[in-house]
């Protein structure tokens, strides 16, 4: 954690000021009185509670009986895995899960690879079309689902990609890749050009430099973009709802059938929500320490 290092010089300062100012010892930066500490931790605890509570609430309800959401106070007395058993054995959940895993994994791999090569080219090479491309990356973020979804639907029909994994993966790539390329471009900008030059001198092709030298160095940036691509595909609803049918239904769409407007099977909804959130949380835990570095580099240089 490079962040704590930054407090280093500040933490060392109080001794200096203490010698220069006799009498009341002023507090250095990065040092807090007990009251400030309490305030800080209270504020953070409150914020953390708000941020975590909805998720914990779902976990809590999911372990109760299927009608637990109507009497939350009863849950603690009737803990059980009934909802999970029902969801896993008697619904389409396992199939939806499989679909979502395939689509999300493919989107992540494909999206990151494509975005990385484009980001590298935009970062290192000056070529005609360089600026329009960056502009396109930004503008693509602005395309509302509503304008694309009908033409995309027709296009998918024409290309025979409707209701296929590949079709949905490609659609998700259009969402994820421009943002990822934009961020990775910023991240590559922070890697010194001398590294590329050294690679070229040693006889690597431009692609070889990219693949064997720059990519390994860009791991934090790649982690963030992978996280972003994965989440894009994992939780997307609008496209999946229109493009995938029957056995190809993904989680976000499938889970909605538990809590439709007619009936609300919150037991199954909560249990499957927990099951869905777990893989996302695992991916998140794997990359979270890179999140800060990766995101900022992209943000500042974008």
């Amino acid at each position, binding site marked *: 954690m490079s962040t704590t290092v930054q407090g280093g010089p500040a933490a060392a300062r109080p001794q200096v000021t203490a010698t220069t100012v006799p009498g009341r010892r002023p507090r250095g930066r990065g040092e807090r009185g007990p009251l400030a500490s309490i305030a800080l931790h209270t504020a953070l605890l409150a914020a953390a509670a708000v941020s975590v509570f909805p998720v914990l609430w779902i976990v809590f309800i999911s372990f109760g009986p299927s009608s637990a959401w109507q009497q939350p106070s009863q849950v603690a007395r009737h803990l059980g895995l009934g909802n999970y058993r029902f969801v896993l054995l008697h619904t389409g959940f396992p199939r939806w899960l499989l679909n979502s895993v395939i689509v999300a994994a493919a989107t992540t791999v494909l999206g990151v690879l494509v975005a990385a090569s484009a980001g590298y080219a935009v970062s290192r090479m000056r070529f005609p079309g360089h600026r329009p491309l960056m502009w396109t990356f930004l503008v693509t*973020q602005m395309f*509302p689902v509503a304008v694309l979804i009908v033409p995309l639907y027709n296009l998918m029909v024409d290309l025979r990609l409707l209701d296929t994994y590949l079709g949905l993966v490609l659609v998700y790539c259009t969402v994820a890749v421009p943002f990822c390329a934009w961020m990775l471009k910023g991240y590559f900008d922070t890697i010194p050009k001398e590294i590329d030059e050294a690679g070229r001198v040693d006889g690597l092709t431009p692609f070889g430099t990219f693949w064997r030298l720059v990519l390994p160095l860009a791991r934090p940036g790649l982690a963030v973009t992978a996280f972003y691509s994965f989440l894009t595909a994992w939780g997307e609803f609008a496209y999946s709802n229109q493009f995938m049918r029957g056995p190809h239904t993904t989680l976000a769409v499938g889970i909605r059938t538990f809590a439709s*407007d007619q009936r609300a099977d919150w037991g199954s*909804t909560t249990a499957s*929500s927990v099951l869905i959130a777990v893989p996302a949380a695992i991916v998140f835990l794997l990359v979270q320490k890179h999140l800060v570095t990766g995101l900022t580099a992209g943000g500042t240089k974008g």
Partner: protein
Amino acid sequence: MTTATVDPGVRHPAGPRRARLRALLPSLRRSWDRYWYAWAMVAPVVLVIGVLVLYPLGYGAYLSFTNANERNVAQNIGPVHIPASYKLVGLHNYWQVLSGRDGVFYPRLEWTVVWTVACVTVTYAIGLAMAMLLNRPMRFRLFYRLALILPWAVPAFVGVFAWRLMFNSQYGVFNDLVTAVGLPAQDWLGTPLAQKTAVIIVNVWCGVPFMMVAMLGGLQAIPGELYEAAEMDGASPGQRFRHVTLPGLRPVSGTVILLSTVWTFNMFPIIYLLLGNNTTGDTDILVTHAYQLAFGGGASDYAGAATYGIVILLVLVAFSTFYRRRLRTQD
């Protein structure tokens, strides 16, 4: 590349056009030789974006000039193929929308703007505050950070379900809390105003982690010496915040606010999933309204949805152009 066109022109004074043509080829070849690597590396992106974004966009723009709807688009009923029978209607759709004649556009636009401004402002403020709290040495730092980023790690629709469950008027946990204190139970998702407040709360909950992480990175990029220098000059914490922190965050803030505005303006799943069909339409922003036009109940109005889409896109492009220009002039 200009050098390539000059030389041959001198050598062939008789046919300048042919000379230019002959000069163009090597120059094309040369730029190909020079740039093919870069082009090859961006080719996949260009291909994907071109086929799956620009082509549909063009098609959508075309649809917005027609009267396409569910009944007159091409259809396959069993083996029978019915060709499309919609026709061009010029600017009719845009006129309907922009003159306010459809009675929906301006109210939706107003709420979309309110929604975007409210969400982005609140999210930015909270995100910045959290980042500043986190950006100092203390105990349990990792725990707080993980807890605060959690909403980002949870897929949006799961978060939305959690909130829907908590907002539930009969059995939701909010009403349990409220009645426990002795206040009357509220219908949290009942009135349009309550629904609007609810969607903003949920969107802020989902959006803060991204903002916080970005701001945290921005804060860490500000050199510590600046603060020390400001402190030496006797700047109060408030002054340090205003004159060191905020300017230092400018590059990150600029990008993040732009992105977040665009995303919020087009935020589809939160509004759609939180309220389902239990809405009077008052909470619909432009995007969800367009989606309802195309895929909601009743006859699908594809042309209308496309028109809305193009209008949304134009609004956003105008905004971001203006915003980036202002950022640049301020620098």
